[in-house]
């Protein structure tokens, strides 16, 4: 499996760490009800198809990436830096 890091280029999957769905980027505001935190931390769409998830180029540039990826075919259609993502 190969991922194209926007900075380092195409790299082997072994250089990356996987976190989970991009839901983790939408941190509830301070004081949000616990149900929102449950949504944020635990509940997932978990689609069999295109999803966006978070990878960390741990053995590379140490950037977190949002990867648009198909969970059935593993096709990757986009990779974006978390730090420079468009909202």
């Amino acid at each position, binding site marked *: 499996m190969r991922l194209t890091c926007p*900075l*380092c*280029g*195409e*790299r*082997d999957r*072994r*250089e990356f760490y996987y976190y989970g769905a991009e839901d983790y980027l939408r941190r509830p505001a301070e004081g949000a009800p616990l149900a929102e935190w449950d949504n944020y931390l635990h509940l997932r769409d978990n689609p069999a198809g295109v999803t966006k998830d978070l990878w960390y*180029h*741990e*053995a*590379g*540039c*140490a*950037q977190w990436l949002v990867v648009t990826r198909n969970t059935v075919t593993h096709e990757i259609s986009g990779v974006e*830096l978390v*730090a420079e993502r468009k909202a």
Partner: protein
Amino acid sequence: MPELIAKSALEGRSLTLGGVTLAEVEVGPITSVALFPGGAKLAAKGLKTLGLAMPAPNTFVEKKGMRIVWTGREQAFLIGVAPPAIEGVAVTDQTDGWTVLSLAGAASVEVLARLVPVDLRLPVCPVGTALRTQVNHMNAVILRTGDHAFEILVFRSMARTAWHELETTVSMVAARAGLKI
């Protein structure tokens, strides 16, 4: 209090086998220069005093024995020179954090191809390439310094493992070369 004696991780070890030379080398100071948001202009000014600029991703630039090596987003290692006064950046000394190994010789690409999961073909990875990647299970910064020459930065505490793995690989590649004869 006597002067403290400095010691490198591998005490300057070197090895030549099968047309490849592996050696621990001394590269002088290593300084991390990381831009703060909006700091690019100030940083450029500071680096200019050395005649250097922030390098493009995956590259390093060498000038008068100094190198500036891309190591991450808006981050570089300044190698071989004390850092100048520079604003707009976080400056962190990294000199002691790394052991630098030089690998040179005709079979050097073959050796690295056994440990590094990155395409090292010359057109893809020309001289002047800086890779943040791994040497087997260790994080590393790899500089392509020549068609058949590399410098490899690994964490100092792992220098012995890096040496061991490179040495083993060099000997396997040499044994294969013997097979062909």
